[in-house]
């Protein structure tokens, strides 16, 4: 049996363990037709294929909500846990398993409301993982309640006369958390930008937080339709260190702003832009932020003899 591919061979041998996009697909997604999550699912599966991630080494952890059904539609390991608690679980998975590729799938209610405490600290732990915030600005699964990112005045079943508190800006908030290392924003209806953003996030040595502005055609059609249809509604953040698009993809944007993703203060300013348009691109990246998962892995592989030795040393302190 030939166990290597000779470099003189012109004919490509069938690669052992080559994964096609179908290898990552599980059951048919049960999201509503027209839901932005379908595009994201496809884009994530494409990333897995492009990166040739072994499905058994890949874990999708989610909370509860429409988006959190995501792991069921992947043929990898998945953890569909509790509302708001994806980040602690994912952190526990990654802490002492550096060999696993970890993705977190969360929604605006899951991340920015019930799980907000974990959001602050998950960012601070900065473990290598990709966190995808599917932000459709509404509670969908429970049938249209105001979410923490619903625009002021959103009519919902909990606020039939319009919501009364301004929403959280997840980008701006995340840029304020300690030890933040990667913040990007993209949209579900421009696959080129979505794909490029996911790739950039996956390559980041730390926690990559990506907010994906996502359409909900059932409850939020009126909110998203203008943004989707109006070419003026988006601003592309452009930089050689940012999300790089080819010229063709770039040409679909009317507004392009240069933004250096190493500039945190400027990134926070850019996050404010949301008032006029939706800025998409890489807001901030710091490849050198301290990573808690590196700490978690520092003492892996200690032998049983060493462990017994350490325990006995401590036991000696109590010896009489």
């Amino acid at each position, binding site marked *: 049996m030939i166990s290597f591919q000779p470099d003189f061979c012109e004919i490509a041998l069938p690669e052992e363990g080559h994964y096609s996009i179908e290898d990552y697909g*599980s*059951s048919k997604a049960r999201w509503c037709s027209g839901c932005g999550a379908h595009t994201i699912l496809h884009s994530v599966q494409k990333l897995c294929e492009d990166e040739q991630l*072994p*499905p*058994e*080494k890949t*874990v*999708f*952890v989610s909370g509860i909500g429409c988006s959190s059904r995501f*792991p*069921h539609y*992947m*043929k*990898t*390991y*998945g*953890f*569909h*846990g*509790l509302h708001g*608690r994806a*980040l*602690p*679980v*994912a*952190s*526990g*998975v*990654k*802490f*002492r*398993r550096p*060999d*696993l590729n970890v993705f977190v799938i969360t929604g605006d209610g899951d991340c920015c409301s019930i799980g907000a*405490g*974990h959001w*602050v*600290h998950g960012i601070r732990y900065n473990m290598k993982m990709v966190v995808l915030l599917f932000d459709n600005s509404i509670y969908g699964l429970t049938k249209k309640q105001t979410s923490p990112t619903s625009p002021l005045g959103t009519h919902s079943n909990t606020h039939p006369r319009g919501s009364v508190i301004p929403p959280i800006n997840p980008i701006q908030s995340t840029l304020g958390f300690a030890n933040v290392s990667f913040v990007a924003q993209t949209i579900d209806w421009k696959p080129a930008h979505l794909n490029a953003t996911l790739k950039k996030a996956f390559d980041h040595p730390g926690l990559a937080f990506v907010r994906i502005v996502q359409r909900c055609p059932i409850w939020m059609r009126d909110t998203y339709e203008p943004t989707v249809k109006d070419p003026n509604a988006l601003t592309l953040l452009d930089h050689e260190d940012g999300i790089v698009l080819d010229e063709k993809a770039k040409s679909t944007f009317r507004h392009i702003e240069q933004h250096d993703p190493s500039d945190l203060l400027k990134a926070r300013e850019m996050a404010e832009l949301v008032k006029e348009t939706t800025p998409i691109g890489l807001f901030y990246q710091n490849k050198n932020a301290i990573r808690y998962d590196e*700490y*978690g892995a*520092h*003492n892996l592989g*200690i032998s*049983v*003899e*060493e*462990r*017994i*030795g*350490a*325990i*006995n*040393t*401590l*036991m000696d302190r*109590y*010896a*009489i």
Partner: protein
Amino acid sequence: MISNPASQPSETNRFERTKIKEAVIEIVSDSGEGAQKCGQSLGAISAKMGNGVWTVEIIPAEIQPPARSKAGASGIRVRMGSNKITNMGDHADLVVALNEQVLYGRIDQNAYKPGTYLLIENKWATHTEETAIAYKESIEHFKELGYYIFEIPMEKECLKHVSDAKKGKNMWVLGLLCNLYDRDLEIAANQVKYIFRKKDEKIIQSNLDLLFAGYEYANENFPMHFTIPSKLSEEDYVVMNGNEAISLGVMAAGIEVCSMYPITPATSATHAMAETIESAGGIIHQAEDEIAAIGFAVGASYAGKTAVTITSGPGIALKTEFIGLAIMAEIPLVIIDVQRGGPSTGLPTKVEQGDLLAVLYGAPGDAPKVVLAPSTIEECFHFVILARKLAESFRTPVFVLTDANLATGVQPFPRPKIKAEWFPEPLDQSPWKEGVKVYDWDKNTGISKRPIPGQKGGMYTLTGLAHDEDSHVAYDPAINQRAVESRSRKLAALRETLKPPTIHGDEEGDLLLVGWGSTRGAIEEAAERAREKGAKVSSIHLRFLSPMEPGLKNIFDKFKKVMTVEINYSDTVGNPLITAENRRYSQLAWYLRAQTLTDIDCLSNVYGQPMSPIQILQRLEKELNLTLID
């Protein structure tokens, strides 16, 4: 080089000593005066001499309560004897108080009896006018209560050796107690050196000076000197409290992730291992909150890393949703609950066994789990190892319920020999056997094996939703019925492996006491003392609370009456509106009544104190109509 000063007492047996079987000693003070260090040292010295020892801390709720106040009593009780000591005992025989006001807190708790020796710092007699008046009034009051008072110039004596008596007075008191109870001075000196091993030599020397000075002072100024015969064991012993035993147990169980959030009285279990656990292959993760602490442990365990989370009652309340998930998705996990007084913030530093029903039933839906309750310090160590093993074998969360009494109680026990077999097998990453379902529930035991991320062919999505054998969301109602039955069957399978509890005393009689957790020492001692007086009293102690140890109904049927002894609340018949019919029972009683259809009574209270033998004996006297207390 530390030299023993000239003042070191050379002659230690210049007077007759009264031989006693045991003594209960308390040292009480304001917070921060080192009373606990003094008592812990006395306990350690006695254990090293081969005496039986039990110490229990007296802890105020605040870090710095007002000085000289009833609420501020901080300190320690040391019970030491010729034989094994299993509980804090009844009343103190001798008390050292660094001020007189803190004694009121203890008197209210009925900690003393007429004849108790009170050794009180007398500097307050010449303090401010107000203080002096309070001091004198108190001394008179204490005399009326029948205590023997010794007013001791502790500060004055200490100032002969150090410039600041606040630091070191505790070591002077230790020296004094070492003399009164005939403790080995060399062992005591070594203990002092050990305590201050990280300090410079000057500090060690001045503390030794104080130890010897206290010892010397006791030569002259007291009419009573005791000795407690001891026997050194051939076996190696260790002496520690329950939280320290848990720490060592966590490491010996091969735990790789210990995830916690600070909470009294559980957190010191993490402190004790903090320096060592990383060399023992584990890491402590201090999470952002209680929920994240268990979530992190659940994630780690899902990924094949052995995990524990340590908390107390309020933490259990917050973790409940994740506990349900771990049961539903069958994720092994050890959950240690060092109980305190509840509900709500309750009595953070005090003793209560109030979490039993919350742990057994405190989750929506049917959430069967394994619940263990260690009854000694030694069991705190071994039960963590057992819990880890059970969690993995049965693919389920396992609770270890201790309480503030075990957490801070110090007792010597044979040094465990750490065994390689206690550590879990290395992570199995070999390919998942094709065709085996991820919840392949065994028909007879409900047990199934789980794939771990990294295992080829084992990919599945774990879910908290009702699911079938493939972990697919259950849309068919029959699946849920089958899944819930399978999870429940695991408990039945574990129960098959358990033995009925050991009966202490005769197998039949007038009264059977049933306990769980930290009350074991007090219950067995009370029952034994009652039997010596002719009472037909026996006791059993449950270590497995879920599944329940088998054979209980048979045991109960041989006694005229069965009564639990617990530190939690029950209504008292005869109180306004309370009848035998509407009475709310204590937690184990409630549970046993339901399980065995036996009319079980209970002795329970929520004073926040460990149960003492005399409390039990007082109730036995009423129940049996006998005189049992001398």
